[in-house]
């Protein structure tokens, strides 16, 4: 199916089913409610077929361009039917499985993720491993029964809901850096896994600590080969920086539109608003180009750091404006809408931290795009 036909069919279907797709809670809802809702929306869109476009047949998809799933996420986000951060985790984790899992494992697992029957998480960061991912130390050693994993992960989004985890482990020597990393696909019900949610500043328990105490992961759950973990992590970036950012841009667009309606008369300064619109539109234009490059098989590399910088800059500019225009609501309002603005304002502070901090992105731009050396 081409994008135009898909757009028309999806828009019609969404118009007809908006009632059953909309969240039943007001404002942000609890995280339990959010997860329940995003899974429901995924199931309904999967069963109607739309969720299956843009994914290969051998993992339960209908094939077609990734542009189709970029549009699906955009349309759901623009209509406030999904929270893009929760929804887009599929965009990051499913391609990793398709590219690196044994075909029969991908075929068995990916449909459950697409349909919202399962939630997955991504175990990358560790207490001692933030920006410097190659220094991770969560250890996996070979035993007769499979990999035995020992260590700790942190900032693992939705681990308390997840049935599976894409996990980076150290299988080489501690000095092996990016060469000695192996990616595993672990069942979260395995004995020895403990999850501790962390209450974040914006009021959600989205992030967790995950502890691994002699957890056995079968060898056939290795993603790629031993030592391929760095490649798995790097190949995931193009997805995190294309469709996912496109979905997030649709979210920012919707919230800025809603701010126009919510702003008291005279509260918006035309010059500041104009500049923020231009920033958001430039980010969307950039993201549009990146999504098209990805969909046409182009290789996405360090230039996507610019997309991430633009996301962080636009998101923070928009919510700084929210904070200045809806000051009373954001600071002291306790109704669901005010709570939502407040939570989103606070979450926007993280946009320059997660997924590679603003400083790391600028270092990448300097080294890889401007040829300024490695900074030593």
């Amino acid at each position: 199916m081409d994008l135009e036909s898909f757009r028309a069919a999806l828009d019609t279907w969404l118009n007809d089913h908006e009632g059953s797709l909309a969240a039943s809670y007001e404002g942000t809802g609890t995280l339990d409610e959010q997860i329940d809702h995003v899974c429901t929306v995924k199931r309904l869109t999967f069963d109607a077929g739309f969720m299956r476009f843009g994914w290969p047949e051998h993992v339960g998809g209908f094939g077609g361009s990734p542009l189709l799933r970029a549009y699906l996420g955009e349309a759901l986000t623009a209509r406030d039917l999904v929270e893009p951060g929760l929804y887009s985790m599929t965009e990051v984790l499913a391609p990793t499985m398709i590219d690196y899992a044994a075909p029969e494992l991908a075929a068995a697992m990916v449909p459950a993720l697409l349909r919202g029957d399962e939630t997955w998480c991504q175990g990358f960061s560790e207490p001692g491993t933030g920006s410097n991912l190659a220094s991770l130390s969560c250890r996996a050693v070979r035993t007769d029964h499979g990999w035995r994993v020992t260590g700790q992960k942190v900032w693992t989004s939705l681990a308390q809901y997840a049935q599976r985890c894409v996990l980076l482990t150290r299988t080489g020597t501690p000095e092996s850096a990016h060469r000695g990393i192996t990616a595993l696909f672990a069942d979260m019900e395995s004995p020895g896994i403990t999850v501790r949610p962390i209450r974040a500043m914006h009021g959600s328990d989205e992030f967790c600590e995950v502890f691994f105490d002699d957890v056995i992961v079968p060898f056939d759950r290795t993603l790629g080969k031993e030592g391929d973990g760095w490649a798995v992590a790097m190949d995931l970036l193009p997805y995190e920086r294309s469709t996912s950012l496109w979905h997030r841009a649709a979210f920012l667009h919707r919230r800025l539109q809603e701010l126009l309606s919510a702003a008291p008369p005279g509260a918006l300064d035309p010059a500041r608003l104009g500049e923020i619109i231009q920033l958001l539109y430039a980010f969307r234009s950039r993201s549009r180009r990146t999504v098209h490059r990805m969909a046409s098989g182009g290789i996405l590399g360090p230039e996507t750091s610019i997309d991430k910088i633009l996301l962080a800059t636009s998101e923070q500019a928009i919510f700084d404006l929210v904070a200045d225009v809806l000051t009373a609501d954001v600071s002291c309002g306790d109704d669901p809408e005010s709570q939502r603005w407040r939570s989103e304002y606070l979450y926007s502070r993280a946009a320059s931290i997660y997924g590679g901090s603003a400083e790391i992105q600028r270092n990448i731009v300097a080294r890889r795009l401007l040829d300024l050396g490695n900074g030593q």
Partner: protein
Amino acid sequence: MDGEEYRQFERTLTNATAQHTGAALDMALDDLGWHDALAADPRTAISLLCELQGAANATSCALGYVFAHALGMATNRGNGIVLPPIGRWDPPGTVDGGDLAVQGIANASLAHEGSALIVTTTGARTVAVSVPTESLALQLVDGMDPDLMWYDARGTSVLADRNVETLAGDWASAVALGRLAVAHELVGTSRAMLELACAHARSRIQFGRTIGSFQAVRHRLAETLVGIEMADAMLEAAWLDRLPKTAAMAKSVAGRQARTTARHCQQVLAGIGFTTEHPLHRYIRRSFVLDALLGSTISLTRALGTEVIMTSELPALPLL
């Protein structure tokens, strides 16, 4: 234009803008078939020429040609077109009874043309009035960037039917296309400044290391590239939807990032970049004036914000 044809055209234009400026560049454009390219593929012709012209710090009648094309005239008549005064975008001619008042800027080449084309609107019509060049007071502008060799053109002429020509294009579309041309030139100018600053950061040694190894310097230059790529992406969107509002956004983003580029690159180039012995100052001057041309960043941005507040509606954007 397809692959090989495009690359050939780009090579030819690169040589032309590197070797020539002013009237010589106009002649070169004529010879290399740029006017035909403008008619057949305006996006390629405008984006390539204007970015290269910006990168080479060259000048030409390109903006006049772009206006002529958008207004439905033969593009080589662009030499004679009077453009709006700096900072403004209304037509340079205003009709008052039987008189035509002119205020605008013109390229140096106008001085050699027998007549000037003054665009004005009467009712729903956009017209070009041909007036003798000698009827205009032409004053060479020094200003921030004397290399532009612009003339301030003003005067009053008698309006007569025989010299009035109804145009196929409308003024707003011409301004929109002109803004895209200027925005591309700002991007080209900015890329040249960034390359000068990066070359300096890679070679200048202090405290025993290149200054480009210091994070403060690296982040300034990274920020500069982010701004340039923002303008580049916004321009692509404007070419896709061809809406005047998107063109105005592209021009604003290009103008703002050029000011940022100038600030960061001047800081990195430091002492040498403050002298006229280094080329940076020419690019800084050029970008400053180009930002003001056809509406400055701040005026276009405020106009956008005012309209959005009035309508409570965000502008349209190209679809995925």
